[in-house]
């Protein structure tokens, strides 16, 4: 059992979207993914929608003791299940909860959208998590995931030449995942629709992300979707 946490203080960074993309790809690839959405009061996709190859649990962290108890039960169970993959979808502006989740994770991913403030906060978040874990004596990898960045090269290249973006790219060399989740309408559909199978583009990006994640976690490669 491995745990991947999508964390970050900035709302709209893509924690929920990216965690669903990864869970979808993992389910299609034969892992046993279980997605835990930490705050049910944020954009919560429909529960129990047919077509999701992963279980989706929503916890209400305004009741921390209860949330912790439920999470303990889920972890107990997934630990005993071979091939299980727990994906934690953190909430925005929940520093204290994030600390607890970061300590449970085998890999932390901080999704970063394309706004100047997004970049700044994400870098700060990544450094904060790394510092926290190193303080605990853990070597948990912490990576940034570019999310909702321009997908077309004709748009991406000029964007990369923007001052704040160029600075960010230089500053975060080696700290980013190579997978980039572009602006897909179907990523949003993954969260909204009742049959969230995801279109081929989403599956492809998800698979790329899954391969990179499984490499970082050192888990056996999944079968082709």
């Amino acid at each position, binding site marked *: 059992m491995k745990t991947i946490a999508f964390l970050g203080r900035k*709302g*709209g960074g893509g924690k929920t979207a990216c965690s669903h993309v990864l869970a979808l790809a993992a*389910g*299609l690839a034969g892992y*046993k*993914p*279980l997605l835990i959405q930490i705050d*049910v*009061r944020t954009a*919560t996709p*429909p*529960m*129990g*929608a*047919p*077509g*999701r*190859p*992963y*279980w*989706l*649990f*929503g*916890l*209400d*962290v*305004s*009741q*921390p*003791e*209860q*949330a*912790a108890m*439920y*999470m*303990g*039960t*889920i972890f107990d*169970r*997934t630990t005993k*299940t071979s091939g*299980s993959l727990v994906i934690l979808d953190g909430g925005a*502006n*929940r520093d*204290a*909860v994030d*600390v*607890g*989740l970061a*300590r*449970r994770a085998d890999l932390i991913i901080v999704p970063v959208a394309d*706004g100047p*403030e997004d970049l700044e906060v994400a870098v700060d978040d990544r450094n904060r998590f790394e510092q926290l874990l190193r303080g605990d004596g853990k070597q948990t990898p912490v990576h940034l995931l570019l999310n909702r960045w321009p997908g077309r090269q004709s748009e991406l290249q000029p964007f990369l030449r923007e001052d704040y973006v160029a600075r960010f790219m230089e500053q975060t060399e080696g700290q980013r995942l190579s997978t980039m989740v572009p602006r897909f309408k179907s990523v949003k559909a993954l969260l909204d629709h009742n*049959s969230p*199978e995801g279109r081929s583009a989403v599956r492809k990006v998800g698979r790329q992300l899954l391969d990179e994640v499984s490499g970082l976690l050192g888990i056996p490669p999944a079968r082709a979707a």
Partner: protein
Amino acid sequence: MTKEKPGKPAPPSDFADLAAAFAMPGKTTASSTQEASQPPSTTSDTEVALPPAKVAVRMRKTAQVPQAGRGPGRPKSPEELVNQTLSLRADQMAKVHKIAAAEYGRLGRRVLPSEIVRSLLDIAFEHQGKNTKVLKS
């Protein structure tokens, strides 16, 4: 001859009982194969712990918000309470407008400044109170 369409992917069967168990506690939401096509019940003990009243207020249209200046004793609308509590000046309200545009404009719908102010208040209250405890490991 048409190619047979593959069935929809299903969640891993290993956790079906876990999901079913989680469908029982009142304050937790969970997916379940048995209830796959059914929306969560709003009358049973398995009610989802979403804040329906708050969401409803947030989604209220401007025309539905009671206007100020009526007789004494009338309950104040959340917008009025927010404005009364914070006493925002015009320039501060302009900043809130700016934040509204930056944060929520991309959602593709108009966002009232009062929604943003309430979001900020929510965050402040959470930080102050309930959310200070770390999840137990």
